[in-house]
């Protein structure tokens, strides 16, 4: 039985995870969305249109790249990378956003709203809204607005309104709450483009469906290039949409799937965003769904931490939680330090610049690849590119020349202002 063949009365559940926990006022809106999504999923012309658009607008299929230098250096498995970084807007987020844009057209709605943490999803949504002619509001925690100005710059220039959310920790989860508040007011003409495979049903299924394009392509590509399937497939897991996308290509194969969470300062630190690999999280219900959350014993959410804003989130995709419980997906976590080291290594040996989020997958994959045989294959999802997040990456690498450049730039702006 497939993941999405729900038993009677269990629609939207994956084992004990998932569900729809929303205020009554949104019931009709969610029913409308479910019906529209079902119609799209059952209509082959919808998927065709989606794939064509992803080709012409975002450059799909993205390649699978062999990393000969790194493979030789580590002396173990042969390492391949799925290049979601080569998408328009620089990450896998665009897959989901374009899909939901097409769906929003079918719904007949004229406005889209979205939450964003690092800004990737907000950036992608603003791009889609500009292309499809939707009004667009992006909710972003005030802390994130302050640390991700380049993405805010692009969102605003693409025509979106960016609202800085000052509640709670002023990060991703608070942006989701605020987007929900907008939605309960404006649902008649507004679609909520949730950015990851979390939240109430049908979002986990819907986002996973759009992201499945990654795994469908990757399976074919790796078979064509190597004549066999990979032994292990790695992807970073924040909400879990890029991992769901890639893993779906290999669920029925004898392939080990490994989700890599944000280990932050490590397992005992309580400063991380690892829901499944570490042991602090527990089952709960928040933000519309049931899953493992980083929360206290009374059910209030804990603060989370990661070097990568895109992984810095309290909950995890309910489908992934189910696959983990079933033993189908193994979970591990990469610490901030491991991520910095992996990023330097990948840049210097292969000339690739993965986003800090994606580098979590690299960090764990490289450790395991080194211990594998030379005839084995490892596939990593490079879910986003890091070069565009130059401010964040420069901070993470603590680059003094960059800091010098920025202070000079600041002095120049100050002088211009005064003259």
């Amino acid at each position, binding site marked *: 039985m497939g993941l999405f063949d729900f038993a009677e009365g269990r629609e939207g559940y994956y084992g004990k995870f998932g*569900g*729809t*926990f*929303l*205020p*009554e*006022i*949104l*019931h*009709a*809106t969610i029913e409308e969305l479910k019906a529209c999504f079902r119609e799209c999923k059952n209509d082959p012309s919808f998927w065709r249109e989606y794939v064509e658009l992803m080709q012409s607008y975002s450059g799909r299929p993205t390649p699978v790249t062999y990393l000969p230098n790194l493979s030789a250096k580590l002396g173990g498995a042969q390492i391949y990378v799925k290049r979601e970084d080569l998408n328009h807007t620089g990450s896998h987020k665009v897959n989901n956003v374009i899909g939901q844009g097409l769906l929003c057209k079918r719904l007949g709605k004229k406005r889209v709203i979205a939450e964003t943490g690092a800004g990737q999803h907000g950036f992608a949504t603003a791009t889609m809204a500009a292309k499809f002619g939707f009004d667009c509001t992006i909710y972003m925690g005030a802390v994130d607005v302050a640390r991700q100005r380049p993405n805010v710059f692009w969102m605003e220039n693409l025509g979106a309104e960016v609202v800085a959310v000052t*509640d*709670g920790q002023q990060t991703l*989860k608070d942006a*989701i*709450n605020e987007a*929900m*508040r907008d939605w*309960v*007011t*404006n*649902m*008649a003409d507004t679609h909520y483009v949730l950015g990851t495979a979390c939240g109430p049903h049908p979002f986990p299924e819907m986002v996973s469906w759009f992201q499945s394009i990654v795994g469908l392509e990757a399976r074919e590509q790796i078979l064509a290039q190597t004549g066999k399937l990979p032994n292990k497939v790695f992807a970073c897991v924040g909400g879990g949409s890029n991992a769901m996308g890639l893993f779906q290509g290999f669920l029925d194969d004898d392939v080990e799937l490994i989700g890599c969470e944000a280990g932050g300062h490590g397992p005992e630190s309580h400063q991380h965003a690892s829901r499944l690999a570490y042991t602090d999280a*527990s*089952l*709960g*219900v*928040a*933000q*519309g769904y049931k899953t493992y959350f980083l*929360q206290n*014993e*009374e*059910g*209030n*959410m804990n603060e989370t931490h990661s070097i990568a804003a895109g992984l810095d989130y309290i909950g995890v995709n309910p489908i992934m939680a189910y696959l983990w419980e079933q033993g189908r997906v193994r979970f591990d976590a990469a610490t901030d330090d491991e991520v910095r080291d992996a990023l330097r290594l990948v840049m210097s040996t292969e000339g690739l610049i993965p986003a800090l989020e994606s580098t979590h997958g690299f960090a764990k994959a490289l450790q395991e690849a080194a211990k594998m045989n030379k005839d084995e294959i490892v596939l990593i999802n490079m879910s986003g590119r890091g070069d565009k997040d130059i401010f964040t990456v420069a901070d993470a690498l603590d680059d003094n020349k960059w800091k010098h450049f920025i202070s000079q730039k600041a002095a120049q702006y100050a002088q211009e202002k005064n003259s």
Partner: protein
Amino acid sequence: MSLREYLATSRGDKPMQIMAHVVCGYPSFEDNMRELEIMAANGVDVVELQFPFSEPSADGPLFVRANELSLKAGTTVEQCFDFMAQVSGKFPFKVLMMGYYNTIFKMGEEKYIARLKEAGGVGFIVPDLPIEEAGELYSVADREGISPIVLMTPTTSDARMEVLGKAASGFVYVVARKGVTGSKTQMGDDVSALVKRVRQHTDVPVAVGFGISSREDIDFLKDIADIAIIGTAALKTWEEQGPEAFDALFASLTAR
């Protein structure tokens, strides 16, 4: 006495019955107690005690901040129940728990209902728990004589009102408009039509909430609904104008 029986006996010659709201531990439990004393003195019929939660997604800005600051000050679920026990022993009005489902889920449904009953609570309002997910909790509540309060909204279809009406206990909470708590609602034909539609699907009393802030609202609602729910307006008055204005607000809302 069940919530419904209580409401029938406490009606008297009031223009409407009033349900008021406080966020436990905000601004402080001492402030809460003073607020409740004023509410009781003005003849408020029911009070919802909100247990603060870190993700109050159905609340507007004022209550969001109240939830956040209360938690920051260290408010725990146990303190909220202890406070509820004090309050229900001290005042004539009936007390409900208002909060989010994760608080109940983490505690365990059986234990939650037992603790609520022990603290003198007679019902609960949990806005993020849809009826499809509420089966177990509602049946435990029913067994213990606790009323789960169902919500009906402008977007609720007749077919769904029929389903919700069957589960209704105590009273129905009618959400007067789309959105979150705290913004003004224009009382008018939409609200009347909504309440009429609700009455076709249930015979329990009808309470109207979201955006009720003045005597004018009560005068509009008194001929169509049974209970007016005052939330944000009261907290706003307490914060901005203090106890005297708070007293004046409730005096005006409850005046015969």
